[in-house]
């Protein structure tokens, strides 16, 4: 029988905190300048799961990239255990990315020519671990994640959920204090998405790693310790939300695109979804409204 989803082993994590202090990111200059993130402050404790939600274009990815030292803030400071990583010289950053952060992406971003095992091991090798030791560690990690019989598979031979677990193993291999995930469940069906979420929770709770997730996925709220709402590059109070019954996107309750059908109110992210709803209302109305409180 296939292992459903293995438990990640516990770990005595070095406690670490990430502090974001009045961080701003501006793209472009002059007339075309866009402030994607504005004066954002945030602190993430060890073992904490923070979910960042918000409309498209609100700056979530920009913020996450800055947290992961992939992008330099235009102003403000980002500190990891007191060390200011936002001011570090470019040639110190690879080491920080390699050892302090684990990244998880929406479209997995595995290297297509490498096997599952090699995809994980290569990151350990980059950190200076010997090849044999790196492969061994990768094999153990993948086996713990239920991929023991998939070690030598190329990514194209793996399902979406398997790929994301390989990506999680890759994110964990150098024992980072912080996991950063951008829409980790967007390309997965709901059951698999749920498994991945559980896994992320275990990683935070059992291993004491901080996890920052950017997502539109309402269900991630269940596992998050804290949900933040980013809008126009700033954290706002969480408004009451509804779920678009057609596409499953989170929609604000003051959204203009809404209809009443059989006594219930339905909210939509766009006119397209509303029109689709109209064509088969009975099909969508069952998984309806559930307004959620932030």
């Amino acid at each position, binding site marked *: 029988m296939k292992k459903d989803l293995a438990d990640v082993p516990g770990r005595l994590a070095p406690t670490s905190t990430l502090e974001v202090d009045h961080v701003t990111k501006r793209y472009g200059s002059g007339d075309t300048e866009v402030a994607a993130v504005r004066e954002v402050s945030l602190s993430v404790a060890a073992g904490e799961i923070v979910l960042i939600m918000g409309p498209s274009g609100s700056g979530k990815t920009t913020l996450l990239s800055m947290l992961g030292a992939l992008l330099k803030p235009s102003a403000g400071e980002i500190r990891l255990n007191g060390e200011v990583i936002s001011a570090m010289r470019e040639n110190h950053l690879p080491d*920080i990315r390699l050892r302090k952060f684990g990244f998880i*992406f929406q*479209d997995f*971003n595995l*290297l297509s020519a490498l096997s599952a095992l090699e995809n994980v091991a*290569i990151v350990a090798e980059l950190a200076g671990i010997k090849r044999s030791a790196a492969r061994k560690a990768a094999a153990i990690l993948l086996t713990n994640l239920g991929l023991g019989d998939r070690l030598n598979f190329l990514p194209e031979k793996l399902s979406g959920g398997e790929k994301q677990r390989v990506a999680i193993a890759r994110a964990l291999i150098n024992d980072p204090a912080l996991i950063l995930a951008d829409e980790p469940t967007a390309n997965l069906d709901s059951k698999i998405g749920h498994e991945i979420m559980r896994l992320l929770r275990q990683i935070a709770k059992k291993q004491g790693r901080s996890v920052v997730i950017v997502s539109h996925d309402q269900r991630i709220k269940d596992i998050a310790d804290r949900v933040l709402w980013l809008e126009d590059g700033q954290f706002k109070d969480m408004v009451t939300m509804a779920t678009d019954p057609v596409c499953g996107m989170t929609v604000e309750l003051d959204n203009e695109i809404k209809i009443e059908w059989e006594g219930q109110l339905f909210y939509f992210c766009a006119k397209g979804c509303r029109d689709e709803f109209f064509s088969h209302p009975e099909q969508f109305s069952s998984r309806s409204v559930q307004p959620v409180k932030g």
Partner: protein
Amino acid sequence: MTRLAFRNLFQNKIRMVISVGGVALALMLILSLDAIFTGVEQRITVYIDNSGADIFVSQSDVRNMHMASSSLPDSVTRIVKAVPGVAKVTPISYISNYVVMGDERNLAYIIGLPDMAEFGGPWKISSGGSLPEEGEAIIDRAIAEKSGVHLGDEVKILGEEFEVAGLAEETSSLVNSVAFISMDDFAELRGNYDTFSFLLVKVKEGVSPQDTAKRIEAWVRDVTAQTTEAFSNQERKVVKDMSTDVITIMNLIGFLIGLAVMALTVYTATLARRPEYGVLKALGARNGHLYRAVLAQALISVAIGFAVGLAITLLLSAIIPRLGLSMVLQVSSASLLKVGGLSLVIAGISAVLPIRQISGLDPAVVFRSK
């Protein structure tokens, strides 16, 4: 990173075949041309090397056979024979001319051999006799075959008819062959009975050819005496001097083709992998790691291309003699070294081109590849 280079390379088979094949062909061009000329160099001295002589004595300051003529008076034979250390001598006459078979004219070294010559004649006979009598000629087997000439047929040398009395092996090269006639016929054709061209000398056992050659030069007036090895080297040098320009140009062309193919495939391969290199950067790879992957990819393709090119050239050099062609491909270690060096340069340069693609890569793109 080398592993990644390997995997990347072998994942896209078509691109690999193009790059490896292109490099292999380009290197093969260089290798086989070198091999052809090395073969020619070697074959051009085939008579000298197989004459059985230890020393070649020629007219003063004549140091080779090709495009040269030497004339020695008959008396030299007697005097040289008296030089201490000399065991045997054979005078030969030589001229560069044609063996005409029907409509075909084949450039040849015509060698006039004395009766009863103990050495200096053909060393490997495939059929017929090995010493030409009056009115007879011994010509190369491959040339004869090509022109459909058999034992007993007539050929024309220096305007006279000769009967083919023997067929010799290993006496032809891409550019010429060796034909043997009797010394008397040679003299008659040239109208000159008192001189000959070279004196072939065998030394006594245990005697150094070098010392003996020096002694001959000291004892005999107006001659140059060289060991067979030195004489052979001089002969080769003549061919080398004629072929260097051609070889240089062809090397350059081969190098440029190989470089173009390699640079293009490495560049496009890097471009195609850009998103993945971006992912690696985001995960913490340094530019140096990624350069190494690109360089390794170029080195691996060039190494495979080199191996394939060499294999094909060696195969050709094994097959061509069997086809009965008067061509020999000889892969020399100097040529291998040169082509190996060129391969490294090709790999190095083609890996430089995509450097900007990598260093300019922003790791933050990983979140935007959707």
